[in-house]
């Protein structure tokens, strides 16, 4: 999944989009070695030393990895997937929401005039 996420982040770098991880490695060293190896640039919360039993994934009732949520620009959950939904589905969902977010921004700019 990393290669596709990397290209997603690269492709949308000037768009209203962020990929935020909740890294659930027990050891931060595992994380630091991994991001170097896989050239990963996005920010991640750390789920703490209990790894997959950490507080964030516990509260969100995460039962499998990866679990993905997509939240729109208003903070509303629009998609959730247990497991990778596939590149195409992911791109389609995110592109549609990014377009929504941009439309909103343009409306605001107009209002500002």
């Amino acid at each position: 999944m990393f290669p596709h996420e990397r290209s997603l982040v690269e492709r949308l770098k000037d768009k209203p989009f962020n990929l935020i991880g909740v890294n659930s490695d027990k050891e931060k060293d595992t994380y630091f070695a991994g991001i170097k190896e896989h050239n990963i640039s996005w920010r991640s919360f750390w789920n703490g030393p209990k790894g997959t039993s950490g507080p964030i994934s516990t509260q969100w009732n995460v039962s499998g990895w990866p679990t993905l949520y997509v939240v729109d620009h208003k903070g509303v959950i629009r998609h959730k997937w247990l497991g990778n939904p596939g590149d195409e589905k992911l791109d389609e969902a995110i592109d549609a929401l990014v377009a929504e977010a941009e439309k909103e921004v343009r409306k605001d700019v107009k209002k500002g005039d």
Partner: protein
Amino acid sequence: MTRSVLAALLLAAVVPAQAADASAPKLAEYDTLVADWTAAQKANADAMKALMATPEYKAAVEAKDNKKLNELRNTITRPDAKAFGTRAIELADQYKGDASIRVLAYAAANFAGNKDTAKAIAERVEKDHLKSAKLSDLLENAMGLHRGLGDEDGNKLLEAVIAGSPHALPKAWAKYWQAKVLTNQASTALRQAQPKRDATDEEKEKAKEGVAKAKQDMALATEKADALYAEAAKLAEGTEHSARIGAPIFEKQRLQVGMEAPDIVAEDVDGVAFKLSDYRGKVVMIDYWGFW
């Protein structure tokens, strides 16, 4: 998809390895058991890592040659969980009370995939520990134990806890696992009722009735499970496990498509505090992930 499957495989091995409770009294033989198992797990993980770095393994990954991959993986000897389980049970029989339960809890979390070990744990719980408050430590990781026992005996144990425990938390865990088992069973049945991807039209038509029935059963199981989760959450209120036991209800009430996402306030991996809501105005994909 490979990543999720691999993660699931690794998690099965990694997650249940619980660290010993530092506040509890010292039990030398138990500590040795934990140290030995931890070392065995680590040796296995290291061997797996080394294997994954070999050109032969990488070539098999590249070629998606699953047969070869399995062959290669099978060259690595797994730690003998059955032998460790037997050792843990013997130790639990030497100890008494809370000390005994502590060993059983460790065995339940790490070695209960073995039928005989699971059975030995359940027998001791029902005979000696039903009234113990510490039973919650064992039940916290009861899914492996349930699998080892099978549905019938697993549920018998959970029922015994609900009927016999004078404490809220063990009962909460028992209801929590009952709920989880119900929905797991129903979703497995639903998956099995679905026609295969390459099914003929006739086979698909035939499967329809079974799928409809399985969906109905799933809805019923979900309803029952929700009621159990609610009871469990109430029992666990104010305890250190309230977040985990309450999580299924939290997900249902706060984490559905169309709902405003609850904020996450925590630190990033570099130790800098931030909030999910800092990114309001942008589309955010939240990825629960790890390298494992």
